[in-house]
């Protein structure tokens, strides 16, 4: 029998999406639907003197106006409970929600928001991370000490989470070095920018509410609603229709409770749909602006002896799920290199800017970019080719990582060599201004509990009921392959019930590249239970021994006697009068590899990387020296993902990730005037377009792990975005002969670096 694993599989939801038949949250129709609008602070930091909603409430078509006075006084937050649903006494960033309105038309709701009178006493905003950390700085949260936190979170006055990672003796390491290089890199705030804006619909029946939401994480979102409205979780049903992308921006709990509150007061269903401006200003999950300081010692032969690192993350007004970024960023500072002595610290700094949090590979691209620029500078310092420098320092099987985890096997070097071969490193026949740049990195797989049910239907089809969330990557769609493999069926014979907290068992949601890795194991476990029951029933019907049976091509048959077989449909039908063919699984998560945290501090959520995967990207860029414009005609991306379950899906993730990253590398960044974003729209905040997309050479390597995902698979969703900006940065430096130490590496920044080098702008 041919295995389905590793075969190209076209996802089941593709056709309805590309033909416009798929329905998203904003497409849903309800009788008596009202429209929600939020009133935002539109200022970075102020005390609220007075809010008067009288006029707004009296306006035509208005059914509800709510403020924090209408909500339970609950502070919530994944790591630090620092936030209320609506502004309470103060506003801390421009997109802080002060009030919400539900009215019969969006225009009426907007007019009512404009009629709410708020008197503010403006305060000087806290914007700079270094200033915020000084003891003289005013506080974004004067009451920070009284906030509840998750276990292990260590904080300071404007610092919602700091951590240290220590290995060996960093001073001794520097003493061994022939060269010591210190550099600082900075990245701007960047956004997730899913094509579908946030949308929420809430409808009450009695004391139960159903919420349709564009959430990547239905179960955590449900918990957030229950916590902030002080109602039982069982009174909240959260359903996600088709989701138009998320990239982390729709993780965590967002606006569901605001809309539920409006719907309760209005006694009508209420819908919120964000404008694109709100997507930039009011969403509370952007990629942190960061400042990364690196000092590394190397011997003359290129051997790294020690590294000191300090990362400051501008986390904005609230902590949200930002500590994922802090924890992962900390684990990226050594890169996939042997760094025997390390001292790294990271601070998550409160400011009066848009709250930051998880965006695809939180902490990954910006840290990898800084570390890999630094790596090329180290190579230059010792006079080695960047490829050779990496060869000498990459981790190999038997080495220990920055927290002492021992690598069982390491494909880091294989990725490097293969990428160099495909891209033709160091390159030749360059057009003017062209060069190659290289970057390597690593990423982890996130172990978590996750549940699924599988059942077989009387017509021989199957149904998977899962708690997992499809964010557009195709990972939930891919669950059908895993169930089909267990049961000798075809993937297209399975329907999937998903994205509904009332039907599926618990799952963390589409976050941390964890869907296939964890829910895949759950589905295999559930299908395995069905398989056992199916074989038992079939054996009874065929009058054969269970162990002589196999499940092939939709039939149970006696091995070696193809004529003695029963279609699965008839077994499933027969089971309806006896014991049903149903199963459940919860995919018990593998444990982290052994590691050593002595000397480390803070909440280290990613203290070791489970089933680590490696990659190497090589970018070809063209720098227009007169304008500083960078174009990227070609990127080679070699990734090792353990076991490739579906090459089509994995390739799509890599291609998409590389293309998304080019925007982050050369275009995407929020510009600020004080506490206000200057480019909250798709013209001012530039993603790259199809016309800018490079040729992407993808190669997928395999290195199956025992303690990993289904069939030895590793996480796929996030690693593809980690290395591209780093490779582009190194290529730009090679082409321009000067390095840009700010992300994005915009044309103007490249031009400025080129001309400063020539002394023209002194």
């Amino acid at each position, binding site marked *: 029998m041919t295995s389905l694993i590793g075969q190209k599989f076209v996802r089941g939801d593709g056709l309805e999406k590309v033909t416009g038949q798929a329905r998203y949250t904003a497409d849903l129709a309800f009788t008596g639907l009202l429209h929600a609008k939020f009133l935002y602070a539109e200022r970075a930091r102020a005390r609220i003197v007075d809010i008067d909603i009288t006029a707004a409430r009296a306006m035509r078509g208005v059914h509800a106006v709510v403020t924090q006075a209408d909500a339970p006084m609950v502070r919530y937050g994944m790591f630090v409970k620092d936030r209320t649903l609506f502004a309470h006494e103060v506003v801390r960033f421009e997109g802080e929600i002060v009030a919400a309105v539900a009215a019969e038309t969006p225009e009426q709701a907007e007019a009512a928001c404009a009629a709410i009178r708020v008197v503010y006493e403006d305060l000087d905003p806290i914007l700079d991370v270094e200033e915020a950390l000084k003891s003289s700085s005013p506080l974004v949260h004067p009451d920070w000490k009284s906030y509840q936190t998750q276990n292990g979170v260590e904080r300071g006055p404007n610092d919602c989470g700091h951590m240290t990672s220590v290995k060996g003796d960093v001073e001794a390491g520097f003493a061994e070095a022939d060269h010591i290089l210190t550099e600082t890199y900075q990245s701007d705030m960047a956004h997730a920018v899913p094509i579908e804006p946030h949308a929420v619909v809430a409808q009450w029946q009695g004391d139960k509410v159903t919420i349709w939401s564009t959430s990547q994480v239905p179960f955590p979102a449900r918990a957030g609603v229950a916590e902030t409205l002080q109602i039982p979780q069982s009174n909240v049903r959260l359903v996600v229709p088709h989701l138009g992308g998320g990239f982390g921006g729709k993780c965590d709990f967002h606006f569901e409770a605001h809309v539920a509150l409006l719907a309760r007061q209005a006694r009508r269903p209420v819908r919120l749909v964000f*404008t*694109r*401006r709100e997507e930039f200003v009011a969403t509370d999950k952007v990629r942190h602006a960061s400042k990364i300081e690196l000092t590394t010692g190397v011997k003359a032969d290129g051997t790294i002896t020690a590294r000191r690192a300090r990362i400051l993350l501008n986390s904005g007004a609230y902590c949200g799920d930002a500590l994922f970024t802090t924890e992962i960023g900390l684990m990226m500072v050594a890169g996939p290199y042997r760094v025997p002595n390390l001292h790294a610290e990271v601070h998550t700094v409160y400011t009066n800017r848009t709250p930051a949090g998880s965006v695809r590979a939180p902490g990954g691209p910006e840290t990898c970019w800084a570390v890999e620029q630094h790596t090329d500078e180290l190579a230059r310092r010792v006079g080695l080719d960047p490829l050779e420098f990496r060869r000498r320092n990459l981790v190999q099987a038997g080495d220990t990582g920055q927290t002492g985890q021992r690598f069982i096997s390491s494909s880091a070097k294989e990725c490097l060599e293969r990428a160099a071969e495909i891209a033709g490193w160091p390159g030749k026949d360059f*057009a*003017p*201004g062209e060069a190659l740049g290289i970057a390597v990195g690593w990423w982890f797989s996130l172990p978590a509990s996750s549940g699924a049910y599988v059942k077989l239907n009387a017509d021989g089809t199957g149904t998977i009921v899962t708690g997992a969330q499809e964010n557009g990557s195709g990972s939930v769609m891919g669950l059908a392959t895993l169930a089909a493999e267990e049961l000798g069926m075809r993937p297209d014979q399975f329907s999937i019930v998903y994205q509904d907290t009332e039907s599926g068992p618990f799952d963390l949601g589409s976050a941390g590249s964890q869907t296939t890795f964890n829910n895949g194991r759950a589905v295999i476990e559930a299908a395995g239970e069905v398989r056992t029951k199916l074989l038992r029933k079939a054996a009874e019907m065929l009058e054969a021994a269970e162990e002589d049976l196999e499940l092939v091509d939709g039939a149970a048959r006696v091995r070696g006697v193809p004529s003695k077989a029963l279609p699965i449909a008839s077994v499933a039908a027969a089971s309806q009068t006896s014991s049903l063919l149903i199963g459940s699984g919860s995919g018990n998560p593998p444990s982290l590899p052994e590691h050593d945290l002595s000397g480390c501090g803070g909440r280290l959520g990613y203290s070791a990387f489970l089933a680590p995967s490696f990659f190497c990207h090589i970018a070809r860029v*063209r*720098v*227009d*020296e*007169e*304008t500083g*414009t960078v*174009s990227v005609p070609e990127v080679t991306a070699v990734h090792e993902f353990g076991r490739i379950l579906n090459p089509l899906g994995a390739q799509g993730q890599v291609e998409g990730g590389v293309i998304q990253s080019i925007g982050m590398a050369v*275009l995407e960044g929020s*510009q600020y005037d004080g506490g206000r974003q*200057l*480019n909250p*729209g*798709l*013209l*001012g905040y*530039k993603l*790259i*377009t*199809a*016309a*800018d997309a490079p040729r992407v050479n993808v190669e997928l390597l395999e290195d199956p792990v025992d303690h990993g995902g289904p069939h030895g698979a590793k996480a796929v969703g996030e690693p593809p975005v980690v290395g591209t900006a780093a490779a582009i940065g190194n290529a730009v430096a090679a082409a321009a002969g000067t390095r840009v130490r700010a992300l994005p590496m*915009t*044309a*103007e920044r490249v*031009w*400025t670096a080129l001309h400063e080098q020539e002394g023209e702008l002194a």
Partner: protein
Amino acid sequence: MSRYFAPTTAAEAAALLAEHGGARVVAGGTDLVVAARGGKHRMPEVLIAIHGATDLASLVENEDGVRLGALTSHAWIERSPLIGSHWSALADASALVGSPATRANGTLGGNLMNASPAMDTGAPLLVFEADVELLSLRGTRTVPVADLLAGAGRTTAEPDELLTSVRLPDLPPATGSAYVRLEHRRAMEIAVVGAAALVTLGDDGRVADCRVALSAAAPTCVRAREAEDLLRGLRPDGASFRDAAALATGAVQPITDVRASARYRRAMISVVVSRALAVAAARAAGTDIAVPANRNLPTVTAGSTG
């Protein structure tokens, strides 16, 4: 509540404009509607949608040049062999507007009347010394494009006047033109700065005549006459173009915004003017440089701007 009219002739549209003060004309809808949805301005109370006025989509060729109806789309201009070979700078510009969808809907008349300083067709029309025809119940008048553009988002057309056509005057032999802009991406973009150039070569191979205009460098698209004066009589080479470009930069006061600082814009004006001049001169000499010039710059000008 907005009122919406869809006249089928230019005359009918002009009558509606006279009747409804404050009415706005919409053709492709790629500027007015998008800006209103983006909160830049409210949707006007009265919309006069002229896409069905077929007499505004005409093309007339005569010995004076060519007259393009206001509804002529960027997509048509981009693909027209006539425009591409004679008035190449306009084809260069239309080919860069927005996306394929924007170019299919967006019109030449709309681009002009929207009067963005960063519009792509403005600078080419200035170097061609094009004029437009404005229609109202009071009759028809002809206005040079240079006099039509009054400021950012403002024209000298009266509120009841409808732009019906744009005339591109015929050009002397041995003339070439080009439009080049600095852009950060290759679609859905507006010019950071842009320049159009027109070069006529004399029998001696020197520049007999030349015109230069800039976009996104001042409150309107503007001519850079000092640069033009300098170049007349010179050899069409890189050194001459750079000197002319330096003078063009002096003609304007660029601003700092989210797309670029004034300092960078100033330096880039010089780059795009040099490049536009180089392409225009090459085309004047008979070299085939495909539309849009921005994506097909000769290697002597070092790389592309895109």
